[in-house]
């Protein structure tokens, strides 16, 4: 039975350290432990980093006699978005690892698969770290550290059963919050401000 891990590093400014982290020996061990059979990396323009890291990773797997258990593959960037990759993850009960750009996070969350979000700490004055911490606390994602990625990978299996629904329920019995449509309605007067 196959199980896919999809790693996305961003299209415009690829997160090189994330490619290296995902293919490090500690991460590879964690993937094997979780039963991952395919690692698929969207490396953007960082093909050089991907190729050398993948080479080293295959060598490591060879030395441990596990090369037949774990496939490594990659692509530069799919202009049609990441939907096909996330679908594959969903079908195989796999997991996804993403840089902390809000676009990728929002796309990945809708598939309700364990999503590890890794902020790029090299970027100055950005809010990736804050977002990753807040999303982790709310139970939507796992906040991963690029220097210690393995613990987050190991945590992904347990996370599958307890992750929060995204987007949060805005209708029906489980409704907790208003949707943007509700807010528009009460603002223009379609619904009573206080009843809604």
């Amino acid at each position: 039975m196959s199980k896919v891990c999809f790693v996305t590093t961003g299209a415009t400014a690829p997160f090189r350290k994330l490619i290296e982290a995902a293919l490090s020996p500690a991460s590879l061990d964690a993937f094997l432990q979780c039963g991952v059979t395919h690692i698929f990396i969207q490396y953007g323009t960082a093909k050089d980093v991907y190729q050398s890291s993948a080479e080293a990773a295959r060598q490591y797997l060879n030395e441990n006699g596990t090369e037949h258990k774990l496939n490594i593959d990659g692509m530069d960037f799919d202009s049609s978005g990441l939907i096909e990759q996330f679908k594959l993850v969903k079908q195989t009960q796999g997991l996804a690892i993403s840089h902390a750009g809000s676009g990728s996070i929002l796309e990945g969350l809708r598939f309700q698969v364990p999503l590890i979000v890794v902020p790029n700490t090299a970027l100055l004055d950005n809010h990736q770290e804050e977002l990753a911490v807040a999303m982790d606390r709310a139970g939507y994602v796992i906040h991963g550290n690029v220097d210690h990625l393995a613990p987050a990978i190991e945590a992904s299996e347990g996370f599958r059963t307890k992750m929060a629904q995204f987007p949060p329920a805005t209708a029906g019995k489980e409704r907790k919050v208003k949707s943007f449509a509700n807010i528009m309605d009460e603002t223009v007067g379609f619904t009573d401000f206080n009843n809604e």
Partner: protein
Amino acid sequence: MASPPPSALYTPTFLLALLTTLLLCLTLRALAILPSRSPKPRLRTPGTPTRVVIVLGSGGHTQEMLYLLRDLDPAKYTHRTWVVSSGDAFSAGRAVAFESEMESRAGSGHGKNVGPGTFDVVTVPRARSIHQSLLTTLGSSLRCLCACFAPLLGFTTASSMAQAPTKDLPDLIVTNGPATACILVFAALLLRFFNVRGAQSRGKCTTVYAESFARVKTLSLSGKLLVRVVDRFLVQWEGLEGVGGGRAEFVGVLV
């Protein structure tokens, strides 16, 4: 004794008094149009023609805005005007795709308020390009401001595409913070300030701003500029609740 000539009136004291009076009037008017703490609109019956202006920005803003609008009901919001910046073909394309999706969901038929004629996409000059200097930004912002009045003052429908646009103000303006949005909100405030076509007295041009889901602890630049002037300022993380002098409403994740 002959009365002094009128020019004797123009003393520094007189000018100062005039200036003070003018400033006072402007301030009072600004206070009158700026949002009160509890906006309570008149109840609106479904079926009332309701026009919404949606400001889209480059990639990330547009994607988030379309997530925000995923439950937009064309039966209620009978006409949508999408405002995009020049050169942003991505956003314009996404707006049209969103409309066609809404159309296929609703099914064709009269009174569904979907399809051609129930929406328009308006392009305005970019307020600011990346790395643009401050001085030229002033010029491009002014050009953007002038262009922002058109989508506020009227809209096109399919049957009147070749004719003059239908004249009416939007009931609601929603945005999530591209630079163009700040300019458009400012244009809407000017219309309310001078009560153009009853913008103020008829309760038109109500503004809603949703801060990006990516902002957890601090507001974006657009957010800081708009937090005190929009009617509702929504934040998606608890840490931002009440910023801007208590104006930010924490509403949870909306995207």
